[in-house]
């Protein structure tokens, strides 16, 4: 039973290391240049630069390579040096995560790349402690990971399933992954920068423009302004032998931009 438990730790650690490696290489951390807050206070420039070093892509790739190598080594060999290196790596990670929780409560640990962007919580620290414990337990495991996989005992499967469930429960990254799958991050239309060229392109492709295009008297708009999700473009026009204004309200959203239009009778005093 003890041996089965130790063997299952090897598999667990290999799986976690390979998953962390894959996440670091595939999921980038969001907008490294965006400054942070600590408890709502803007981070001073010095600390922000340190954060930038930690977020450096080269460092992330290096860490991922190390984790990948350790994970593969755990699978193919039962040499004590590999187990020791894994234990030291997880102990160091536990220390780093604990320090981050105290000193940078705003910053994520980056354990699983961009998925670990939220602040380090108790769950992340507990998870790192448990992994360190698993690494210590794996020191005496007789088999390499692949050997365990070749002949999976029911006890190993059970222990592994329970540990993976615990790992999932302690991982805030899963919620982030689900959220990312659900909605791609995009600025809300109210504060999305929308260039004028995009507005005109949307307008000229719209059915509303097609309906009024022949009535528009001048290609130069009378006024162009924006309020929230709409940019308003006003053209002088002539409809039924009357001078009118056509107001187009063009969406500033990133996708599915629509256009609304209305015909307004100009007021001489107000027409600017």
């Amino acid at each position: 039973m003890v041996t089965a438990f130790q063997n299952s730790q090897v598999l667990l650690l290999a799986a976690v290391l390979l998953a962390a490696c894959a996440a670091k290489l595939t999921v980038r951390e969001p907008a490294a240049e965006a400054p942070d807050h600590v408890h709502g206070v803007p981070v001073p420039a010095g600390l922000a630069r340190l954060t930038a070093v930690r977020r450096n892509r080269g460092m992330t790739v290096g860490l991922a390579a190390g984790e990948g190598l350790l994970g593969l080594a755990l699978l193919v060999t039962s040499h004590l040096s590999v187990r020791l290196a894994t234990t030291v790596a997880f102990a160091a990670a536990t220390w780093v995560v604990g320090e981050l929780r105290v000193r940078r409560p705003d910053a994520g640990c980056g354990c699983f790349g961009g998925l670990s962007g939220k602040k380090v919580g108790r769950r992340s620290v507990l998870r790192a402690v448990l992994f360190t414990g698993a690494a210590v337990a794996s020191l005496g495991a007789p088999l390499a990971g692949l050997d365990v996989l070749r002949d999976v005992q029911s006890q190993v499967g059970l222990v592994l399933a329970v540990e993976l469930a615990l790992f999932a429960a302690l991982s805030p990254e899963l919620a982030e992954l689900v959220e990312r799958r659900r909605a791609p991050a995009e600025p809300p239309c109210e504060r999305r920068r929308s260039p004028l060229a995009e507005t005109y392109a949307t307008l000229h492709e719209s059915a509303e423009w097609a309906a009024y295009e022949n009535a528009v008297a001048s290609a130069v708009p009378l006024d162009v302004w924006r309020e929230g999700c709409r940019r308003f473009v006003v053209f002088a026009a002539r409809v039924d032998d009357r001078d009118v204004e056509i107001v187009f309200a063009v969406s500033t959203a990133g996708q599915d931009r629509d256009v609304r239009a209305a015909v307004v009778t100009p007021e001489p005093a107000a027409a600017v």
Partner: protein
Amino acid sequence: MPSPLRDARSDARRRRRAAVFGAPPGLPAAEPPLRAVGGIVLDASPHLLALAAGGTEVRFAMSGDTGIWHGGRGGLAALRPGRPVIVRLKEGGAGAEGTGGPLGGRGVFVADRVWVDIRRVAGTILACGRDTVEVDMGAHRGRARVVIPPHALQRVLVRHPRLEPGYLIDVICVGSPDGPRAVRPGTSQPGYRADDLAAPEATAPVPGVLRGTATWFGEAGGETPDGAAYPAVDSEGAAGGCADAPSGCVPFPYLSVGSLISVRNECGGRAAAVPVVECGCTAARFCDRCVECGASPRGRIVELTPVAFAGLGGELDAGCFNASVRPDLPVEGPW
């Protein structure tokens, strides 16, 4: 405070927008703003103050309770002809002769508070001399050289410990022949350099009501029409914004010059709809709080002209009030 300024372009924009989206909803129930007037002193006596305001002469009754500020508590001697003043009237005031003009009709108005030649300098420190600080107040407002006399320096340093180029400064000043002379700090200095502003994430949702601090800008008798400087004015087309304005530390929706915003003084409960009259690119750099009535959320969400600020119950010499701002955005109904 007079009704919101409705210049031709703002009116035209509201009319055109209403043609597409319908009329905007009114203000939620709130205390109405007080009346305030900015003008130039024509004559002053213990019982009467005459101002030139809006091209006409306006008279206010003065009483023993009328507070006069001129770099501190001042007396009648501060009301010299030719000086610019902001006058806030007593609520429901009755007792003197109004002659219409900016007060909108005949009536009787009693001055409650008078601020004489009050100014404010807020922006990025460019250079520091022995007793002067040169400040960049943003693209619209240019530069100012503030004199900080020794007796004010200690007060300023308490709340602005980093009087160094690159940091922000915000001081309440009084006019003097040498230019604005600092009297007291307007707010506490943010601890970061002006170019190290912490912006919210690009994907942060825009709240329906923005909460933070409201301050004032400009001076009595300034050129700017009454209204607000809003930190996120669109820079495309004729919207009136500045291209290089920082995004601010609150997720602001983009608006334009002429757009209406509802500003509520959370300390006094007064609220008013004011038009955006300027791009508040300087306000966007300040990620500070107001502590007039509890600590406000961080973020300078609006700068008001002195008349609008005083009308909402703000004390110009205090510098800020805790505020909520509701931008009047088009309501997206079915089409």
